[in-house]
């Protein structure tokens, strides 16, 4: 994948940062406004996919390596599961043991915010991974000599 024209690449560089910030907003304010970890995670993943489409996979992998994406994928899922386990301290799985704070604030509603962040990491990295795998597979089937860079 060579990437697209100079105009597309320049605009992509400019836009990607905004997409990531927008995704982060959607994630962090998921308990106050529409959106949440899942939608935000997909938006962040699409920023990296845009990078990959515009610049080719080398540039995208230099921002987020495959191994790092694997780690984030598992770690996000694990973090969400651990939030559930923490509840067992109070006797119930997924009991909200975090402080609730006060309504309408960013730092409120206990486990919802950390759970949203964990889901966003998980979703973003895993969708990036699957797209990268599809792209690399296609390339590989045309040029079988390329090193297998997705384990």
């Amino acid at each position, binding site marked *: 994948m060579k990437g697209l024209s100079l105009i597309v690449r320049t605009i992509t560089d400019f836009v990607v940062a905004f997409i990531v910030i927008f995704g982060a907003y959607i994630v962090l304010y998921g308990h106050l406004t529409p959106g949440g970890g899942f939608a935000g995670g997909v938006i962040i993943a699409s920023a990296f996919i845009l990078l990959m489409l515009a610049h080719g996979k080398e540039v995208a992998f230099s921002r987020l390596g495959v191994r790092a994406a*694997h*780690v984030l*994928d598992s770690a996000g899922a*694990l973090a969400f*599961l651990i939030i559930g*386990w923490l509840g*067992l301290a109070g*006797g119930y*799985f997924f009991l909200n043991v975090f402080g609730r704070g006060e309504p309408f604030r960013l730092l409120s509603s206990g486990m919802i915010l950390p759970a949203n962040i964990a889901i966003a990491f998980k979703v973003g990295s895993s969708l990036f991974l699957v797209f990268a795998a599809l792209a690399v597979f296609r390339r590989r089937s045309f040029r079988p000599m390329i090193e297998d860079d997705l384990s």
Partner: protein
Amino acid sequence: MNVVPLYVAIPLLAAFLIPLLGIWWKKSGEVLSTLSTALLAVMAILSIGAPAVVHHMGGWTAPVGIALVQDGLSTLLLIAINVVGFLCIVFSLKYMAVYTGLPKYYALFMLMVAGMNGVVISGDLFNLFVFLEIASIASYALVAFGVEADELEAGFKYLILGSVASVMILFAVGTVYAVTGTLNMADAAREIAARFGGSDMNPALLLAAAFFLMGFSLKAALVPFHAWLPDAHPSAPAPISAMLSGVVIKSLGVYAIARVFFTVFGFSPDIPSSAILANGILFFSVISIVVGGLLAIGQWDIKRLLAYSSIGQIGYVTLGIGVGASVLASGGTRSLAALAILGGLFHLLNHAAFKSLLFLSSGAIQYATGTRDMKRLGGLGERMPITAATTNLAAFSIAGVPPFSGFWSKLIIIIATIKAGHPAIASVAIGMAFVTLAYYVKLQREVIFGDVGAAVSKAREVPAVMYVPLIILAVVCVGFGLLYPVFGDSILEPARDALLNGAEYIKLVLG
């Protein structure tokens, strides 16, 4: 506090950790999955005889939050899933060593176990759907794990038909929600009884029931919906075939049918439509028994024969449950319904043991000889005495030779069917039991006895880590046949009572 959520939390922890640690530590899959399935199997066995417990997720009480319930029926399935799962993992340690991507294999395996455990302890319709999807998706990927052409094709077929089943189940869940305003099974049952008790069932609920029946029958591979099974089960690696035939179709199909129909909709003479549902289950069971049995005879691939046999044997399990349902729906005695359900559940447990044993044995044969073609096999008894002996035991059990376990469970089902006033169905069941005997005799003659086949001459017995699970399962098979009094009271009867006493379930969950 109780341990119920750990049945899901432990395998999920393992599943998330395996790919993470697998980056640095190549053996993470083997070690973590063996440890966690062993722990789960011990937990499940220790919970025998414990009273039914309910766990309110997040501390939100039942209709608001999700309730997890472990009653007798759940315990029965948990034992089957986790014991068979542990043995299949042990078998995989050596068998799967020639495959690549092993951390992914073990992680997907743990996800499948987590999904099935989640289904059988869930007390919430939508939650049941979500965990059913986890188990299904993991098994779609595992069927195609070898990435050969026919494995991919089988996996794709399974995936497409499984997706149809999922859509149907979700549609039914939505309809039940629309009518009752709740997703909790106990609450939905109470609402249905309160609003429609005494009169006939609402047509919307009948549609939901029909969609549930179609969806779960697809997952259980009952006959009009069985097209995926004869491709998917043989294509998968042997431990996965053993899991799929041994426990997946039971926990996602049969358990779900039993739980949803007995607990949520209920069978009683007050509800005339419930007789239609019971007859639907009976109809699917009978044609499964017939079609699965007849198609199995002509197969020359061991695993394909076993796969068709699974369709027929699942038919026996649902026949027992369906007879129980139809007795309840027509106002028969509870003791007769109890007998039929007991037979069905007994056969479910038996089938989990001997079908997983047969598939693991077929894996051992393939490992040693490199083929599953019965025409190239034969005379295995001399070369691989342990595998041959366990295969023989399992074949006797499944064919219903007394005193092995399969005989007793089929006998109970057939007696109950006759007593319930379905002599035609009973005679079909008896006839097909002889057909089952016929094709297992064929399997024994072609594979174990007879002249040494072309592929067998150089075969040697498989390593210990592969035959020890076979021996354990064979002991379990024999034990089920001889020691009914030991486990009947503690495992089967609580499971049967859980299905019969819907009122207790509701009281347990809603307090």
